[in-house]
């Protein structure tokens, strides 16, 4: 129907470049209008051939044409398995972690789970060195789960530390802020007293 409509409206379809494909395509239309009663041998073998060539999850994966240099493979012993680390696992999720993101679509992926075991150093490294990647996204997600917030202005991750004070004091808790200095020291540092938290400066993840 689609092509018939387009044919009527569009001179492009008079184009000889559409042949012989068009003839083959028209043949299939015949089959659609009058499907075979029982599967003819030719159809059965085409179906089987399709089964043999069935695309798998690697075929369906996201294309990555340009490979990030940091992920170049390095030589490993032939005794190490060559298999992907992204094997599907349907093991239940750790129920002790409570955060709204724990029921998102990433919580059950193997990379999502692995990142939950990484220390902060690894997460910051991935975040700053794999920009624009799925891995960076997951690192940001994991940092968010752990309470860090990303400042859009200075591109640093901040953490609010809340210390409960003993009863009887003027305030019940003391708030201090830390940030991760990715540019110089590669350490988490305390923010100075002049630090003011402005919500609009932080990315909502």
């Amino acid at each position, binding site marked *: 129907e689609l092509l018939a409509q387009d044919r009527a409206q569009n*001179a492009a379809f008079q184009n000889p470049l559409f042949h012989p494909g068009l003839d083959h*395509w028209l043949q299939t239309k015949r089959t659609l209008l009058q*499907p075979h009663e029982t*599967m003819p041998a*030719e*159809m059965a073998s085409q*179906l089987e051939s399709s089964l043999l060539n*069935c695309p798998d999850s690697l075929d369906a994966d996201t294309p990555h044409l340009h490979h990030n240099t940091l992920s170049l493979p390095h030589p490993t012993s032939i005794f190490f398995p060559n298999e992907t680390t992204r094997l599907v696992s349907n093991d239940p999720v750790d129920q002790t972690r409570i955060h709204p993101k724990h029921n998102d679509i990433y919580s059950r992926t193997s990379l999502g789970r692995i990142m939950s075991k990484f220390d902060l150093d690894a997460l910051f490294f991935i975040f700053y060195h794999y920009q624009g990647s799925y891995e960076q996204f997951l690192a940001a997600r994991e940092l968010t789960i752990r309470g860090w917030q990303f400042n859009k202005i200075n591109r640093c991750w901040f953490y609010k530390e809340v210390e409960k004070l003993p009863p009887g004091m003027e305030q019940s808790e003391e708030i201090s802020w830390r940030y991760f200095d990715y540019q110089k020291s590669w350490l988490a540092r305390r923010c100075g007293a002049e630090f003011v938290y402005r919500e609009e400066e932080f990315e909502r993840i």
Partner: protein
Amino acid sequence: TNQERMFLVFTEWVKLLQRVPGDDVKVTVFIRQMIDKGVLNTTDNMIQFTKAALELSVGSFKESDPTSEVFIATDAFSKLIVNLLVLQDFAGMNRSEYLRLMISVITMVFSEDQGRMGNSFNERPYFRLISSLLCEWENISGHNFVKIQDQYYRSQLNEFTPEFYNIIASFLHVYQPIAFPGFSFAWITLISHRMFLPKMLRLPEKAGWSKLVLLFTDLLKFMAQYTKKNDVPDAVSVVYKGALRVFLAVANDSPDFLVENHYELLNHLPHVYMQLRNVILSAIPKDLAIPNPYDPNLRIDGVESCQDAPNVFYDPVQDLKSLKKPVDNYLRIPSTSLLRVISTNVFKQEFQKDNGIGYDTVSVDTKLINAIVLHVGVEAALEKHKTTANAIFNTKSSYYTLLASLLNDGTAEVRFHVVQAIANQLRYPNAHTQWFNYVLKNFFLEDWDADTAEIQEIIIRTLLERIVTNKPHCWGIIVTFTDLLKSPECSILTLPFVMDIPEVEMIIKNL
């Protein structure tokens, strides 16, 4: 030659993408130069270029070492298509036409390849092309195209997005298994693709649902056509397994899609796929808590969600054809002449083969019967909403008597299909389930003179076959069957057709 120049340009594009990240400015510059230098300035050039790029991509796949990266050119082509859709200023031709043209060319190349190669046709590069196209579109369209700086183009692209997916869906419909059996498994993988199916399910205003129903019915039609009772080709068994998993995933993620489209889906579902039918019919709207159907104190009339009628996405009234007027007139003002018209017009022109359980042919128009039954149910629920429950929970109401007369006047075959259609409405607790529960119970207990035993047998058979299968079981079926088992007016165990068959007697005793 022009074609050789097209090959060169595409090859340069592929090489470029291997050297720089996809969002690098050089990529944009390349596209700009392509357009400025007129590589795609006429539809002829567009067609020739698309053909060249696809032939190169497929050729490169075929020639590549299978252990290496075989899809580099294919992926590059997908990225090119998306970039052309996003970066160009569409003046003469609009985006939809542009995309349709490119995919039409792809379809022609695909058809030719498939026609020429026969059994040696390899579906993978075509699969990969569409898969990557979907991934690239998802990548660029994130957060309503926030990566596009210009507000005007951003809103244009957002408007175009449902079109994008529906165009892909239209072409998937062209590639359906009955037409291209050599693409079947790639096709099923595409309609359930993570960048396609959830998107289509969740487009605003259900904009993707019509096309999705079309694609699922393409799948079911294929299964129906080639599932024979005595011989199911292995490959078709595998198709079924995949279909089952996809439907289970849909039931989990978007049960509302199955709830609202059960009518159309079931019209093409082979009768023998009992469990799959139950999967579709036992979908429950998200966040609806339903009472335990096995609770001995349960009364269907007391269930709160029975106040609400389920949404029906496709109005079955469209399928009533010449019976629309007689049915609607009868519901308003019952008359025996209208009943006769309806009862005599539920047949097909000629016998058709079918793979039912216990029958090989069908002479009734089952789709028409399904439409009548659902339409009456929809109208009954509306009536209850407008007036009172008594208007429809009443064996003298026109809603009830219409269906009753189909049973009364019908052959065993008509009766069977009417009861099946009613059973298809016994789903999660809602207004339809409640009303059809009432109807079926009364049908069972009513006096049909000499036909009582036959009608009772058909009802018990219909309910039983949906319960003896492995789970899931529909809430409405369980409740209705339990009601009949508990009924003081009639003990099922004393019915002749139950006593005659020890296996059935045993099952009923256990239940």
